């Protein structure tokens, strides 16, 4: 083996080392050590002449090992390795001894320090003896760059790199890029509008061919190392197809739920489907779906017009009744009416009914409608008529009204022709007032008139051509089924037999109807129930309803039947009248027979059989027939075709009759039915008429399947929500109610309605509850509630982290009363208020809408305070001045700045401070002690009083103001710890990311190839942030330009002869360098030298000692340790 010849060089570092260590003595000592050929000391070894000493000794004295004793190896190890290499040796034949940080700087005693330096040098000499030359390898660098965070820092870095035609992946957690800067109104000290200067950059980023923007995404895992990182990114489900969405915003408009807008700092609301702000990039919607809906929304599917029940119920729950009413109005033309007389299939289908009791949906709808009507907030705005084609509607029952409502909303001029003196059809002439008060009916109808629907009453339409001649382009027939069916039994012609519709029409028209003391009603539908209850109210003592099937089959609304019985009406089930009994043509009763229920027929209704010999008699002075209604053909125009059942024959899809341009719906088509079904038909006809007039194909169908909960789901929901019965509301006294026509069903109170709405399972969840409103409205078909998060893997060479900051929450400072007093704001809230596009459109307003006359601006809120953050947030003095300027300019208010020290250090900053002084801002030097509303004088009443010492005056001050702005600190992101872990970045005690060197390497981190920019590194202003971002870009571009990375030479090696292939090295290595695989028949570990960082983790866990690390071999380390323990 070649002779080992060592040169030792001791640096004075000026007096840094030589001041404490006797360098001459150390050099002399070093010369005495074995294999040391030469030992020198020099004032600055790092200088060129210092390095030349080494190079010349290598040549002249043939030294082949070098030890330099100087500062920390972090500072100059690479410098001297380079010198050794320049001298012609392998750079790894070098050892560094730190006699500055470890010796001179930490010791005072010259003698002891000198001895310690000798020890350290001896150990280094002993170790360098064992050093081997190592091969230095290079690997290609992937030129793609990952930028994390789409604020100003991330965008700037991404643009700089992408402009050099390098691929950049920009990952942003929020739905849009822009960061905090886009929330700012204006920027100090130039007062540029933040939007104006940032939006172009955002747009550039969005459209840059070299930038791939991954919004609503987060980095989850990073592996590999500089030049070759592998990054896993979670692309969070947006529930919107990014490529289909056009950013029209209809989804947000339609969304019934609202939540605080993050962008507007909670000062405005956004939908659960939303675009965070007007300039958002990407300009596409996001759905804020946080959890799955616990129920199946069967209510909506069951409703014939698919009302957004979830939507309005949840709004009622939140006390937003006006919005609830608006949601109802979107689909339902007659909310108050349906809130009373609808048979509520929604309620029957409601999934909560499977858990305990269904939601009282009809009552809630009525509540919303009544509440708004009582608050006089229902006011229809005239609809702008945009279309030329006039449409005529015949009949003003629910079908006709619904058809008119839909058509006028689409801009068609609509006229309703009504034969009766008042509009409403059966709503008015069929349903008694105690169920549907006339003022409610009138309110819903006049709403439609206000919209612009023309209603011509007392006008019977006989001739369709006549209508067309008047210029109408389409006609809808909603004439209804207004004639009562006859029973066809003996005695039916007797005096005292009435037909239900005639009876109700007379009563409802105010005609006096006289009934005897006993009345029998034949039938089991709603009309029968109505007739029975009306009879009671007309003073009839004994009312008997005769129905041929059982209670279960009764078509009347169950609650109506229940109330009818409460009111003293008797029901004879399983009975059919066989004869009307009379004396002198005057009714005396009816003879009935009992029936039995037989097998169900094809339609599922059970047949009935007369029981022989079961006849019985019911005494009656009047008999009211309520067994069914049919279409009165005599009231219809000529030329129409009818079905066998006597109803109009129409196309089942388009509802068009045999006459072109004439459509029909409601009872005239279906036979007697329900209000909501008639409304559905009317709406359907409106769509059909629209398609007809625009000469388009009619798109068919909407809505969905009524789904039930499974047994498991029911059990789970029971556990989750417990049992909670429907909220009952009071009914008027029974005795009183049969005496008049007052409405029986009482409306919920506000509390009751909200309590009942709380029971809705869908409303129980946060965020989007997938009501489907947006999905139906989205013409692009972009919405998909079933999207899931996707993991994408990126390969990049360089990473830039620019994750920004959080605003400190001042509510933790009790004496500042943030959130307790309305007009105490944070900085970002004030930014939104002064922004022209913000919630107040740029007006500075107090909570009650007044303009403040005086404003206090409190500095250092959460900053420079060891109870919160010890550091200075650096931007607050300046933005505080900006607020002062804006307050003076916009609100013309007095401004008091409470500061401790003014820090205005940047370009134009001091000048801005001076300008604000000129503008007449009052500066009070003192940290605010308290903000209170407890007034001591009249002047303070109704104000917020800011209490502080004016430390320059040495006096306490109490300043009454209208608004207080807290200049809240900037703090590290709440998840900074996790981000630091993912990217292997260190953090300072204050939570911000730590740069590699505060002065000389300010954007690098301990992990090669990972750089940091902007406020994630600490509070800074925009100019500094942009400069830093550009610095990271320069770092990245420099690496890309070189194209390769130098690999660590001091890597692990495996002695295959000893390796057992146990795999522990694989488990422990975070860089995935070792791999255990079969080699010559045995399992052994092999190190991938490209990945190995030489950390030594594997060598430590290796049970057989097969793994060693080059440059840190056992021989080297033990020699060094042994030398240290010997003593000089």
């Amino acid at each position: 083996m070649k002779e080992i010849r060592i040169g030792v060089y001791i640096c004075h570092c000026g007096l840094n080392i030589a001041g404490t260590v006797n360098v001459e003595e150390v050099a002399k000592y070093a010369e005495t050590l074995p294999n040391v050929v030469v030992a020198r000391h020099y004032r600055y070894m790092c200088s060129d002449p210092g390095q030349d000493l080494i190079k010349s000794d290598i040549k002249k004295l043939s030294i082949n090992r070098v030890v330099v004793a100087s500062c920390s190896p972090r500072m100059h190890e690479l410098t001297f390795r380079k010198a050794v290499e320049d001298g012609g040796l392998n750079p790894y034949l070098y050892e560094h001894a730190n006699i500055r940080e470890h010796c001179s700087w930490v010791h005072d005693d010259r003698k002891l320090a000198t001895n310690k330096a000798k020890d350290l040098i001896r150990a280094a000499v002993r170790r360098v003896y064992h050093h081997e030359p190592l091969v230095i390898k290079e690997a290609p660098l992937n030129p793609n760059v990952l930028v994390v965070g789409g604020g100003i820092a991330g965008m700037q870095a991404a643009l700089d790199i992408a402009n050099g035609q390098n691929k950049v992946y920009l990952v942003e957690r929020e739905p849009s890029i822009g960061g905090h800067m886009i929330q700012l109104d204006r920027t100090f000290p130039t007062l540029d509008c933040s939007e104006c200067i940032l939006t172009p950059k955002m747009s550039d980023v969005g459209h840059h061919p070299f930038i791939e923007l991954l919004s609503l995404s987060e980095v989850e895992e990073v592996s590999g190392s500089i030049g070759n990182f592998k990054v896993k990114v979670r692309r969070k489900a947006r529930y919107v197809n990014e490529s289909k969405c056009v950013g029209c915003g209809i989804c947000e408009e339609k969304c019934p739920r609202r939540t605080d807008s993050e962008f507007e700092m909670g000062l405005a609301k956004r939908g659960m489907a939303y675009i965070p702000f007007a300039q958002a990039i990407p300009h596409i919607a996001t759905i804020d779906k946080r959890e799955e809906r616990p129920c199946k929304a069967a209510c909506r599917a069951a409703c014939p017009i698919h009302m957004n029940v979830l939507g309005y119920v949840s709004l009622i729950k939140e006390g937003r009744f006006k919005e609830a009413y608006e949601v109802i109005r979107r689909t339902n033309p007659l909310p108050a009416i349906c809130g009373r007389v609808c048979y509520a299939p929604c309620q029957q289908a409601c999934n909560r009914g499977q858990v305990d009791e269904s939601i009282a949906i009809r009552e809630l709808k009525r509540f919303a409608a009544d509440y708004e009507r009582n608050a006089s907030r229902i006011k229809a705005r005239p609809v702008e008529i945009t279309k030329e084609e006039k449409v005529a509607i015949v009949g003003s029952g629910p079908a006709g009204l619904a058809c008119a409502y839909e058509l006028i909303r689409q801009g068609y001029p609509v006229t309703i022709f009504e034969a009766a003196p008042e509009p409403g059809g059966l709503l008015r002439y069929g349903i008694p007032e105690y169920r549907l008060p006339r003022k409610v009916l009138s309110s819903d109808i006049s709403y439609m008139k206000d919209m612009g629907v023309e209603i011509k009453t007392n006008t019977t339409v006989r001739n369709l051509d006549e209508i067309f001649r008047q210029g109408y382009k389409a006609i809808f027939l909603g004439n209804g089924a207004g004639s009562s069916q006859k029973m066809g039994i003996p005695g039916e012609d007797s005096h005292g037999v009435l037909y239900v519709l005639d009876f109700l029409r007379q009563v409802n028209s105010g005609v006096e109807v006289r009934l005897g003391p006993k009345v029998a009603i034949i039938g089991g539908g709603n009309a029968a129930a109505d007739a029975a209850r009306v009879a009671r109210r007309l003073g009839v003592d004994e009312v008997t309803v005769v129905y041929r099937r059982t209670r279960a089959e009764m078509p009347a609304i169950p609650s109506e039947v229940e109330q009818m019985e409460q009111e003293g009406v008797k029901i004879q089930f399983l009975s059919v009248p066989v004869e009307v009994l009379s004396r002198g043509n005057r009714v005396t009763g009816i003879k009935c027979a009992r029936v039995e229920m037989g097998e169900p027929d094809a339609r599922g209704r059970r047949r009935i059989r007369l029981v022989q010999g079961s006849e019985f008699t019911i005494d009656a002075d009047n008999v009211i027939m309520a067994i069914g209604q049919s279409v009165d053909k005599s009231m219809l125009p000529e030329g129409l075709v009818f079905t066998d059942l006597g109803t109009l024959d129409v196309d089942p899809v388009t509802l068009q009759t045999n006459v072109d341009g004439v459509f029909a719906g409601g009872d005239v088509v279906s036979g007697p039915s329900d209000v909501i079904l008639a409304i559905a038909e009317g709406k359907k006809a409106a769509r059909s008429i629209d398609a007809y007039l625009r000469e388009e194909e009619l798109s068919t169908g909407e809505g969905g399947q009524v789904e039930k909960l499974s047994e498991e789901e029911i059990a789970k929901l029971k556990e989750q929500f417990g049992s909670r019965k429907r909220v009952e509301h009071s009914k008027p006294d029974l005795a009183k109610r049969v005496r008049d026509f007052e409405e029986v069903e009482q409306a919920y109170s506000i509390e009751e309605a909200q309590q009942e709405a709380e029971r809705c399972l869908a409303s129980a969840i946060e965020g989007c509850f997938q009501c489907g409103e947006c999905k139906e409205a989205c013409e692009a078909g972009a919405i998909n509630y079933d999207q899931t998060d996707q993991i994408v893997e990126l390969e990049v060479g360089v990473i830039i982290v620019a994750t920004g900051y959080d605003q400190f929450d001042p509510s933790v400072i009790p004496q500042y009363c943030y959130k307790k007093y309305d007009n105490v704001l944070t900085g970002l809230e004030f930014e939104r208020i002064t922004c022209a596009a913000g919630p107040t459109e740029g007006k500075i307003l107090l909570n009650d809408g007044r303009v403040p006359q005086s404003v206090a601006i409190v500095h250092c809120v959460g900053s420079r305070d060891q109870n919160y953050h010890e550091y200075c947030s650096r931007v607050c003095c300046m933005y505080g001045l900006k607020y002062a300027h804006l307050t003076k300019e916009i609100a013309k208010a007095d401004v008091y700045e409470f500061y401790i020290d003014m820090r205005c250090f940047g370009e134009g900053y001091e000048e801005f401070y001076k300008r604000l002084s000129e503008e007449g801002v009052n500066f009070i030097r003192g940290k605010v002690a308290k903000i209170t509303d407890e007034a001591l004088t009249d002047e303070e009443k109704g104000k917020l009083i800011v209490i502080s010492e004016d430390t320059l005056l040495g006096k306490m001050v109490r300043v009454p103001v209208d608004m207080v702005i807290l200049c809240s600190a900037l703090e590290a992101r709440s998840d900074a710890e996790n981000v630091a872990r993912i990217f292997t970045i260190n953090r300072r005690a204050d939570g911000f990311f730590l740069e590699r060197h505060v002065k000389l390497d300010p954007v690098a981190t301990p992990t090669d190839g990972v750089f940091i920019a902007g406020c994630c590194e600490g509070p800074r202003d925009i100019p500094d942030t942009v400069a830093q971002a550009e610095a990271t870009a320069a770092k990245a571009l420099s690496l890309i330009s070189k194209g390769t990375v130098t690999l660590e030479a001091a890597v692990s090696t495996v002695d295959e002869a000893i390796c057992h292939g146990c795999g522990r090295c694989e488990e422990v290595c975070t860089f995935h360098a070792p791999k255990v695989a079969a080699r010559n028949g045995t399992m052994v570990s092999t190190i991938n030298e490209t990945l190995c960082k030489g950390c030594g983790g594997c060598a430590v866990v290796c049970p057989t000692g097969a793994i060693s690390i080059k440059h840190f071999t056992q021989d080297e380390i033990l020699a060094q340790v042994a030398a240290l323990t010997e003593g000089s």
Partner: protein
Amino acid sequence: MEVLSPYKEATDIILEAGGEPLKLCYQCGLCTGICPWNVVRSFLVRRIMHEAQLGAVDFGSEDVWTCVTCRACVQRCPRGVEIIDVMRAIRRAVASMGIGIVPDALRISAKNIAGVGNPLGEAPEKRNDWVKDLKVKDFASGTGILYFPCCVPSYDPDVKTVARSVATIFNKVKIDYGIISTEAKCCGEAIRKAGHEDTYQSLAQSNINLFARSGVKTVVVSSPHCYHTFKKEYPELGGKFEVIHVTQCLASLIEEGKLKLSRRIDKKVIYSDPCYLGRHNDIYDEPRRILQSIPGLRLVEFPDARENGLCCGGGGGRIWMDTPKGERFSDMRVEQAAARGADIIALACPYCFLNYRDSVLSMGKAETMQVKDIAELVAEAI
């Protein structure tokens, strides 16, 4: 014109006397703003800090003795300056070096404490006379708990009921406790804050020796001031034993079900947080829990409660000094209590007791407003 020349020696005196923390002060004035004195009179805490930094303290000023050591300023100080320590150091400089004037009232109390071991100047042998007919055993080695009532309940005729209530409760629940011999002395907390360090040292040493000799392991105290110094200051001098405030003790007895409160007190009660129980030692909930467990009792709160609670005015040795009418915090408190319709002001500190008692009497509210220690209320509710 008066020109100030910084007087380093004065600063050094203060620093040596324990005022080291004042170096951190950056003169924001928050302390002044928060100090309750500034509601009734001017007291520029910040200015004193700056004077101390520069050695320009006016040792003759009455401001030297103004601080009630309530800790409101320290609690919020952005630089963590232990302002009370600075105030104490200034007083220490005055008291020990004679470079200023000690107020007369304080001087008398200090003399009493140094002479007979209690501020009232009562005979030491009468310290345990409050027991009278109650069965209370003398503490002996092996006794579970030492009950240490504080000088005020031991001697003051109005406040003795506090100690007697505690003994009554302890007897009722059969706690193994005793009281220490009449060799015991004032705990010394307040006189130390008033700058009399030597007196404090000797009191503390005497008590520590007595406790050690008697085998005391656990002490239950009625005064938050005893609590504070036993728990936080005695250990530095070698006195190490468990310290429990009586409200902590009663709260846990109630929660464990050992102490049952069955008699109703149908009164509106307002609780005033003692500074040395609350801000100094973070005990806020136990007193409230006790009061809430008394049947019929309706607890109301002061506008500034808990961390923001207003001092009674008796801390830092102020209990022995005169405060002119119009500047008394306890008067303000009584007004606030009356405004909230309280029938009883509940307390957990003998100093508060004295101040509130005097306020109620001097304000002529004795008919409508009672002042009671929580222990008294508990004893009534058993």
